[in-house]
């Protein structure tokens, strides 16, 4: 249900539009009392979720959209990023920079890695209304 503690953004599936999401959600988080360092964590996480939605979820389909919703309830900010893909096929292992520097691993996986560390919880592979959803949570306190 949409109310005055819920916002929605419907974005083109193109790189660069994640900046609209991070600007909008940063303003929303500030308005409900999050401190600047947590807002920076949120901005990075939202940007990574949106660019993953464009690149891996919608896979460059020009007509696809990226939907971002945020809801603040009981001192918790819930953010969902929806795309038209099928989600992660398997649990991604954390990137190993030593192996990447030695050219043993490709330089991938940093986006999911950062989302998991910067938010209080992240769930992948949820589906809702035939869309793939990444759901992230950040607590105002603690």
């Amino acid at each position, binding site marked *: 249900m949409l109310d005055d503690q819920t916002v929605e953004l419907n974005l083109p599936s193109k790189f660069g*539009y994640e*900046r609209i999401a991070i600007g909008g959600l940063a303003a929303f988080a500030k308005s409900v009392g999050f401190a600047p360092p947590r807002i920076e964590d949120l901005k990075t996480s939202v*940007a990574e979720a949106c660019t993953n939605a464009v690149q891996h979820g919608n896979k460059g389909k020009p007509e696809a959209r990226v939907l971002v919703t945020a809801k603040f309830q009981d001192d918790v900010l819930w953010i969902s990023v929806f795309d038209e893909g099928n989600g992660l096929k398997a649990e991604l292992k954390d990137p190993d920079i*030593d192996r990447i*520097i030695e050219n043993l691993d490709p330089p991938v996986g940093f986006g999911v*890695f*950062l989302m998991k560390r910067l938010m209080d919880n992240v769930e992948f592979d949820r589906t809702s209304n035939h869309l793939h959803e990444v759901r992230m949570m950040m607590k105002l306190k603690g």
Partner: protein
Amino acid sequence: MNQRPNEIKIETHGDIILLDIRGDVTAFSEPSLNSAYNSAKESSPKKIILKFEDAAYINSGGIAVLIQVLAQTRRNNQKIGITGLSEHFKKVFNMVGITKFATIYPTLQDALSAMAALS
């Protein structure tokens, strides 16, 4: 919403090469960063400073590009300093392990002084 290309100024400070990187750092920064590093490499420097704009947007694509540059500096036995980062991106660079291969300095002056003293 296209990203404007990075403008990267290359300066020499004694035996240190400074890459002054303007703009956001994303996967689209790869050509400009590689080009700047290749230009810097021509004088065979042993010390390089990467300076970012403190308001720069850096995402995981940009981090991947930076790590590929760090891989080259490691193969070329170069010492790397980083400066100009916000507190948030200092934390992020530490989280992903960039600080194992490069030292973050609070200011450019700190970076220049500390790296000049390195052998």
